[in-house]
C-alpha cells in the first residue's frame, strides 16, 4: 500500500526551501526563478495523479501509512487503539483540491514576481504554506490534518505581516487570533473524539461515530455529538468564513499582497468548506441533517450579506472580499440542501471560486503594479489603455457572476437546483443574490474599465510576458469546467452518491 507518491507530492516544495536557503539574499532573479520552479514538482505530480485516475487508476493505491505515535499500549485490545499513524491518502474530492492547490500555487508564485523586496524569505514562507495546504487535503487522520492546518497559519501570518499593505500588521494579527481560536476549537473536538474512540483516522471515525450505542470506546451521547458538530461548524465557519465570523478575512483580502490573496481566497478559505464536507458531513451526518436548514439559512445570509455590502464598497479589493463571502454562501447553500445536486454544487463552487478569485486577484496585482491604487473612484477607462487586461477582468467578473459557459454557473446552478428541491422558498430568497451579484460586479468592473478616469494614467502597459501565463491558465480552466463539467464531476461521482444516497 505504500507508494510514497503523496509524501513526495506534499513535501516536494521542501526541496525549494532548502535550495532557497542556500542562495544569496540579493540574487533577485535567481530567487524568483527558483521560487517559481520549486512549485512545479507538486503541480506535475498532482496532474499526473489526476490523469492516471482518469486513466483508470484506483485512488486507494495512493494511500500510505507509517506508524508514528502510540499512547500507552492497548494492542492487546486492538492493534490500532490510541495510535496515531502518519497516513496520507486521497479520494476524488481531495484529488481535485490537490490539483487546484498545486496549480494555483504555481500561478501565485508567478504572480509573486511583482513582490518588491526580501524575495528569499518570501518564497521560503510561500513554499512552506504550500506544504501545509497540500498536507491538509491528503491527511487521513485528524491529528495530521491539524498539524498541516497549523503549518498554513504561521507562514501566512508572516506573509501578510511583512509583505502586505499599510495596515498589514493589524490584518496579520486578526488573522492569527481568529484562526488560532478556530483551531483551538478544532483541537478540542479532535481530542474529545480521540479520547472517546481511541482513533483519529477519518474513515474509522465515520464508521465508529455513526455505529450506534456501544461502538465507541466510551459512550457518546447524541448531545455530545451535536456539541462536537457545532464546534466543528464554528471552527470551519471561521475559515470559510460564515457570517458573523468574517471580518478577519476582509482585512486579509485588502492588506495581504495579491499573490498571497490568490492562495488565501483560492485555497485557504476552501479548507473551511473541505473540513465541513469531510468531517462535518462525513463524521456527523445525522447532526448535519438536523442542522441542514440552519446551514442553508446561513448560506443565504452569507450570499445576500456579502452581495449587498459589496455593492457599496469603494475599494475594488473590498468588493472582491465581500464577493468571496457571498460566494461561500453558495457553498453553504449547496451543503444545506444536502442532496446530490447540492453537495456536488458546493464542491464545484469550492473549485470554481478558487479559480475565479485567483484570476481576479491576479488582475488586481497587475492593476496595482501599474497605478498603485484600487480605489474605484480614481480608476476608469482602462479598456482603452489596457484592453487585454480589461477584457480578462470583465471575463473574470462574468465568471464570478455565474455566466453559463464558465465554471461559476455550473456550481451556482447545481447548488440552487439542490436547494430548490428541499427548501424552495429559502432558495427563492437566495436567488435574489444572483441579481445582486451581477449588480455589484458590473458596477465595480465597469467603473474600472469603462468610462473615463478621474486622473490621467499615462503610459500604462497592457499585460506583458509572465503575466500572460496565470491569466490564460485560469480562464482556460474556468471555461473548461463551464463547458465540460465532467472534468470535475467524474472524480466526485462516488462521493456525491455516498452523501446523497
Amino acid at each position, binding site marked *: 500500500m505504500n507508494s510514497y507518491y503523496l509524501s513526495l507530492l506534499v513535501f516536494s516544495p521542501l526541496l525549494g526551501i532548502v535550495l532557497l536557503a542556500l542562495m544569496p539574499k540579493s540574487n533577485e532573479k535567481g530567487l524568483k526563478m527558483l521560487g517559481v520552479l520549486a512549485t512545479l514538482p507538486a503541480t506535475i505530480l498532482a496532474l499526473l495523479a489526476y490523469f492516471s485516475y482518469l486513466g483508470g487508476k484506483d485512488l486507494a493505491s495512493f494511500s500510505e501509512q507509517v506508524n508514528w505515535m502510540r499512547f500507552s499500549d492497548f494492542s492487546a485490545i486492538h492493534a490500532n487503539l490510541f495510535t496515531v499513524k502518519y497516513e496520507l491518502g486521497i479520494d476524488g474530492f481531495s484529488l481535485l483540491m490537490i490539483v487546484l492547490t498545486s496549480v494555483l500555487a504555481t500561478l501565485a508564485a508567478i504572480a509573486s514576481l511583482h513582490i518588491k523586496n526580501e524575495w528569499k524569505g518570501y518564497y521560503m514562507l510561500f513554499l512552506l504554506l504550500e506544504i501545509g495546504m497540500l498536507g491538509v487535503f491528503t491527511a487521513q487522520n485528524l491529528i495530521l490534518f491539524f498539524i498541516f492546518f497549523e503549518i498554513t497559519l504561521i507562514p501566512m501570518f508572516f506573509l501578510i505581516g511583512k509583505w502586505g499593505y499599510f495596515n498589514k500588521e493589524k490584518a496579520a494579527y486578526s488573522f492569527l487570533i481568529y484562526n488560532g481560536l478556530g483551531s483551538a476549537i478544532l483541537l478540542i473536538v479532535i481530542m474529545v473524539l480521540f479520547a472517546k474512540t481511541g482513533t483519529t483516522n477519518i474513515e474509522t471515525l465515520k464508521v465508529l461515530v455513526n455505529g450506534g450505542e456501544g461502538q465507541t470506546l466510551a459512550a457518546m451521547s447524541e448531545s455530545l455529538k451535536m456539541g462536537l458538530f457545532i464546534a466543528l461548524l464554528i471552527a470551519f465557519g471561521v475559515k470559510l468564513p460564515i457570517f458573523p465570523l468574517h471580518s478577519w478575512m476582509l482585512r486579509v483580502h485588502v492588506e495581504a499582497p495579491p499573490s498571497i490573496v490568490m492562495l488565501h481566497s483560492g485555497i485557504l478559505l476552501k479548507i473551511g468548506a473541505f473540513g465541513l464536507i469531510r468531517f462535518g458531513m462525513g463524521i456527523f451526518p445525522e447532526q448535519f441533517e438536523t442542522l441542514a436548514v440552519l446551514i442553508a439559512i446561513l448560506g443565504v445570509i452569507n450570499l445576500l450579506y456579502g452581495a*449587498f455590502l459589496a455593492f457599496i464598497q469603494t475599494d475594488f479589493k473590498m468588493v472582491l472580499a465581500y464577493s468571496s463571502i457571498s460566494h461561500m454562501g453558495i457553498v453553504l447553500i449547496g451543503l444545506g440542501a444536502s442532496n446530490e445536486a447540492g453537495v456536488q454544487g458546493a464542491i464545484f463552487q469550492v473549485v470554481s471560486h478558487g479559480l475565479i478569485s485567483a484570476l481576479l486577484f491576479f488582475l488586481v496585482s497587475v492593476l496595482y503594479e501599474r497605478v498603485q491604487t484600487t480605489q474605484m473612484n480614481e480608476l476608469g477607462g482602462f479598456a482603452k489603455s489596457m484592453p487585454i487586461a480589461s477584457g480578462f477582468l470583465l471575463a473574470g467578473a462574468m465568471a464570478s457572476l455565474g455566466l453559463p459557459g464558465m465554471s461559476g454557473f455550473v456550481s451556482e446552478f447545481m447548488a440552487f437546483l439542490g436547494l430548490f428541491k428541499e427548501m424552495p422558498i429559502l432558495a427563492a430568497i437566495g436567488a435574489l443574490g444572483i441579481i445582486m451579484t451581477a449588480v455589484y460586479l458590473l458596477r465595480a468592473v465597469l467603473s474600472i474599465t469603462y468610462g473615463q478616469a478621474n486622473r490621467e494614467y499615462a503610459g500604462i502597459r497592457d499585460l506583458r510576458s509572465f503575466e500572460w501565463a496565470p491569466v490564460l491558465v485560469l480562464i482556460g480552466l474556468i471555461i473548461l469546467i463551464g463547458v465540460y463539467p465532467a472534468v470535475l464531476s467524474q472524480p466526485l461521482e462516488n462521493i456525491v452518491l455516498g452523501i446523497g444516497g
Partner: protein
Amino acid sequence: MENAWLIPLFPLLSFLFLLLFGKKLKEASAYVGILLTLASLVYSVIVLVGRLTNDTYKAEADWLQIGNLQLTVGFEVNQLNALMLVIVSLVSFLVHTYSKGYMHGDERFPVFYAYLGLFTFAMLGLVLSPNLLQTYIFWELVGVGSFLLIGFYFHKDSAKAAAKKAFIMTRIGDVGLLIGMILLFWQTGSFEYDEIFASVQAGEVSGTMITLTSILIFVGAVGKSGQFPLHTWLPDAMEGPTPVSALIHAATMVAAGVYLVATMFPVFAASETAMATVAIVGAVTAIFAATIGLTQTDIKRVLAYSTVSQLGYMMLALGAAGYVAGVFHLMTHAFFKALLFLAAGSVIHAVHTQDIEKMGGLWKRLKFTAPLFLIGTLAISGVPLLSGFFSKDEILIAAWANGNYVLFWLAVIAAFFTAFYMFRLFFMVFTGKPRSEYKNVHESPASMTGPMVVLGILAVISGYVNTPWFGTFLGDWLVEGNEALGHGHIEGPAWIMIVATLVSLAGIYLAYLMYMKRSLAQDWFTSRAPTVYSIVNNKYFIDEIYQSTIVYATKAVSLFLRFIELFLVEGLVKSVTGIVQGLGKLGAKLQNGQVQAYGTVAFVGLAVLMLIFALTGGYL
C-alpha cells in the same frame, strides 16, 4: 440536418479568430465575419429546406452527471427552430455586411465583428436548444453579447450605464426563468422540452404548479423582450451602434422572449391564468410603448419603443392562443424592423445626428435609403399588401377569436398609434425643407444599401407565406404534427381586416396632416393636455420610479447592513481581541520582574500542592 449543430459554430469561430488575429487584420476582419455568417446562413437554409420534407431531428449527448441525474446537451430541428435559424442567420449576415460600411474607420472595428460573432453564435445556439437548461445557457450568453455591444463605445458614460442597465434588468427576468425551470424540473424530472410537455399533458403536474412555473418562465421572457415592466433597458440600449440595434434589439435577441413562450407553448396553454397573463402583459405593453413612441424625438428611440410595442403584439398573440400569429409576426417584424433600423443607421451615418427635429428634406438626398425606409414604415403600419399587414391581421383575429375584446381594442388603438408615429417619423426626416447644413449629405455605400434592399424586398413579400387569400402555408407547417399548438389559421370575421386597414390609414393621414401638409398644428394635442403629454414624454416616469424605489431600497439595505457590520460584527471583533489582550495582560503581570512576587507565587503554589497531597493522600 444531422449536422445542424455546426451552424452556430461558424460565428463562434469568427469570434475566436477575430479575438486572436483581429488586430492584425484590421478592417479585413469584416470579411472573416461576413463569410462565416454566410456559411451559417447557407447551412440554415439547407436545414430549413430539409425540415420542410423531413421530420423533426433531435440529438443529445451527456453533459453533466449529478448523482443519478443525467443532464444532456444536444440540438433539435423542429419547424420553429428551423425558421428561427434562417431568420437569425439571415439578419446577422446582412448586419455583418452592412457594418462593413457603417463601422468603417472605427478603431475597434475587429472587436465589433468579434462581438457580433459571439452574439450570433449564442443566438443560433439558443434556437437549436432541445431543453430548458441549454436554452438558459444561451439565453444568458446572448445577454452578454448584447451587453458588450451596447457598451461598445465604452468611454461614453451613457453607454456604460445603458450596458449595465440592460444586463441587470434582463438578469432580473432571467432569475425568474431560472427558478421556473428548476421548479419545473423537480416536477417533471427533466429539462427536455418533449419530456416536460409529455409530463404536463399526462397531468402529472398540478395546475397551480403549471401556472406558477409558466409565469416565472414568462418573467424571463418579459425581461428579454422588453415587456412592461422590465422594458426600460431596451430604449437605453440604443446607445449601441445602429447595426447592433437592428440585429439584437429589433430582430433577434429581443424576440427570444417570444420564441421562449412559443417553444414552451404547450405548458402555457395548460394554464388559463398563464395565458391570460401573457396576453394582458403583451397588450398593455403594445399600447403603452406605442404612446411613448408618439412623443420621442430620437430616431432610434422611436424605433425602440415601436419594437417594444410590436413585441407586445407578439405576446398578445401567443397569450390569445394564436401561436401561428405570434411566430408569423416575429418573422415579418424581424425583417421590417431590421430594415427600419438599418435605414435609420444610414440616415444617421449621413447627417450625424439622431434628433429628428434637426432633420428634414432628406428624401432627395438619400435616394436609396428614403424609399426603403418608406417600405419599412408602410409594413409596420399595417398597410395592405405588405408583410406587417398580414401578420398583424392574424394577431387581431386571434385576440378576437379568443374572446379578449378589451385586449383586441387595445391592440387596434395601438395599431393606430403605430401608423401615426411611424409616419410622423418618416415625414419629419424625409420631407419638408432640406436643411442647409445637410447640403453635402451622401447616400451610404453599397455595402450598406445592399442589405437594406434585401430586407426591403422581404418586408414586402414575406407576408405572402401565410395569407388568408393565397393559403396559410407557414401556419399549417408550423403546427403540423403538434395539436397542442392550435390551428394553422384561425378564422375571423372579415370586418377585422377592414378595421385594421382603416385604422392604419387614419393614423397615416393624421400624421400627413400634422407633419407633411401642416394643416393641423403639431402641438394641437400637447397644448390641450400638457400634463398627459409631459407624463408620456417622460415615459410615464418609470425610470424615475425605479430609481426612487428599487435602487434606493437596495442602497438602504446595503447601508443598513454596513451598520450591522460596523457595530455588531466589529463589536464581536473587538470583544474577541479584547479577551485575548486581557489574557495577555494578565499573563504579562506574571512576568513583572519582581523576584519577591515570583517567590511568593512559588511558595504559595507549593503550599497549595502540599495541602492537596496531604488531603488526598497522593491519589487524585
